[in-house]
């Protein structure tokens, strides 16, 4: 789950971390009212779950109320890397003297946490890593030990953070690590972490991704879940508890298991088609789940053929076949369906499907054959996809 910048900052503030004072706004009027309460100058910032806001014109300084209104109107509705701006964060402008970078994430290959700190902040860290990898001080943190104050001081020196700010930055890092652990974050990133001309250290931006698996101990995360960026299809699938990712083609994909679903998407591409989605219905394939999946795919106007790719393991082929037949009876499907059914008791399953086969419901013996058939049905010349 991705947090908006302001949600991340509100989380930081709960740990006593210094962030600029601000307010969320959903219209130009709200932005103006917020600026009047906060005092000028303010920064009007687009709240989207993607980077590169500054370059896209999504972050603007406003010296007076007219400017606040003009910028708010300009930024609301702006498209930033496919994300439409619907919310703003209005915050008191900061006076920047220095810009640093700090982050915590999991290093999967070391199987420990990784902290990264650089005195060269305010730019993309990937660019710093490519140009001057020595400018990023990395520290591995054993989750059993945590991060000590002494380690923070060493780390700050290794990153060549100037002496005047060193102690404050070390304190910020220690608190930020607590946020990262307590919040079950996949990523906590602050870029830039600034020093003002008055010598104060302030977290001027936030990028926080939370682990959706941790919601059982964070009951307040439902509020974050409600603000995730999903297209209509993804929203509908999410409501049904389906693992769905929207793509831009015309072949709807249903498979059981994440690996098989990913593989099905690959194979559709390999035989010259374009998948409309990734959809994993999980281990079983009962009629209810299958009907829900078909409904979500059927509501996607770009879909012109549906590929159901099921491999029976513990779940037997005949149960899957019954599920598909029942589901197609419940939902009125606009596109032809191609089924590949293999694995445990596949022969029995196919026999059950046989009497229901038509030019709306087809069966193919292998994954490749089924993908070819579905792509063929979706129509040649499907180069354009969704606009």
């Amino acid at each position, binding site marked *: 789950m991705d947090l908006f910048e302001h949600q991340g900052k509100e989380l930081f503030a709960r740990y006593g971390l210094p962030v600029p004072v601000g307010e969320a706004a959903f219209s130009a009027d709200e932005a103006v009212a917020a600026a009047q309460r906060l005092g000028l100058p303010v920064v009007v910032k687009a709240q989207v779950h993607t980077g590169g806001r500054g370059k896209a014109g999504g972050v603007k300084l406003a010296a007076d109320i007219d400017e606040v209104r003009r910028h708010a109107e300009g930024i609301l509705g702006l498209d930033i890397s496919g994300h439409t701006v619907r919310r703003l964060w209005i915050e008191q402008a900061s006076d920047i003297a220095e810009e640093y970078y700090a982050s915590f994430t999991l290093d999967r290959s070391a199987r420990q946490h990784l902290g990264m700190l650089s005195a060269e902040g305010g730019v993309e860290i990937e660019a710093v890593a490519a140009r001057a990898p020595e400018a990023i001080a990395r520290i591995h943190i054993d989750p059993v030990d945590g991060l000590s104050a002494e380690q923070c001081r060493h780390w700050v020196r290794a990153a060549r953070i100037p002496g005047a700010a060193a102690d404050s930055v070390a304190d910020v890092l220690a608190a930020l690590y607590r946020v990262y652990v307590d919040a079950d974050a996949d990523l906590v990133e602050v870029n830039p972490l600034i020093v003002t001309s008055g010598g104060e250290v302030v977290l001027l931006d936030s990028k926080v991704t939370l682990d959706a698996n941790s919601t059982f101990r964070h009951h307040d995360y439902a509020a974050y879940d409600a603000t995730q960026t999903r297209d209509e299809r993804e929203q509908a699938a999410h409501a049904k508890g389906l693992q769905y990712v929207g793509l831009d083609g015309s072949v709807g994909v249903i498979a059981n298991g994440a690996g098989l679903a990913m*593989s099905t998407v690959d194979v559709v591409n390999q035989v010259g088609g374009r998948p409309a989605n990734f959809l994993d219905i999980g281990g079983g394939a009962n009629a209810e789940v299958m009907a829900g999946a078909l409904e979500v795919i059927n509501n996607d106007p770009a879909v012109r053929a549906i590929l159901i790719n099921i491999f029976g393991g513990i779940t037997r082929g005949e149960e899957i076949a019954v599920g598909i037949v029942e589901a197609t009876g419940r939902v009125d499907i606009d596109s032809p369906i191609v089924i590949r059914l293999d694995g445990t008791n596949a022969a029995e399953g196919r026999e059950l499907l046989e009497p229901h086969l038509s030019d709306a419901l087809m069966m193919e013996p292998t994954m490749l054959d089924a993908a070819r058939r579905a792509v063929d049905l979706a129509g040649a010349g499907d180069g354009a996809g969704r606009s």
Partner: protein
Amino acid sequence: MSIFVDERTRVVYQGLTGSQGRYYGLLNRDYGTQVVAGTNPRKAGTDVDGVPVFATVAEASAATGATVSCVFIPAPGVPEAILEAAEAQMELVVVITEGVPAHDEALVFNKLRRDHPGVRLLGPNCPGIISPGKCNIGITAGHIALPGGPVGIVSRSGTLTYQALYELKQQQIGVTTCVGIGGDPVPGTTFVDCLAAFEADPETRAVMMIGEIGGSAEEEAAEFIADHMTKPVAAYVAGVTAPPGKKMGHAGAIVSGGKGTAAAKMEALTEAGARVGQNPTEAGQLMVEIVASL
């Protein structure tokens, strides 16, 4: 031979009294696995279809000689369950449970590395391990695998593993052991661990490896293959066409910052000398060719 588990392996199921634990525990027993005990502190002294239930893993182990544990506990209780098994000196802890937070996984893995270096953790969020004809621990459908050899399988994905087992069986090719390492960010057992074990197992003469996008486990496997494997490897990596920044079902399966792409993984594996298929069927065919030439 096989790796990690065989016909002598005695297994205790933590969570045997729950619906999933009971269902798969008894299926595993039907397959021939020595399912000797279950645990549940509130149901000690009872039994599940004849399998005795104990309060703790230590008691179960003392009474039945279990040396491997299989965990079907809901996600919030998983860290404690793993540590309990480790303290009872289980050699292998297989965690089927999905949805365990990554921070819990990292914490427990590092605790084991420090305090219980002799304990092997498999999972969380994995289908388990099967040495066909000998022992099946977890949720793999045992009958889709042909016992014997010469192929060892290691995979990050459940259904693709089943598909691989099934395709090999159709070709009358046997499997020594099939290990599902799971798709989570901090797997207890990695590709490299399994490749090393297969390399050392005299009965395994070729290895099939199924990877997916995200992380760098496949690249590390490629390095190991280049430096240490004498046995041939056929590989497949799912998610070639996955868009960056989107999680594809598994918590680990995400392409971020241009890293963890299937293309990079396939290239690394090819350079390491593995034969890489473009889809699961092709990888299966490559394995058929490899086995024919052994």
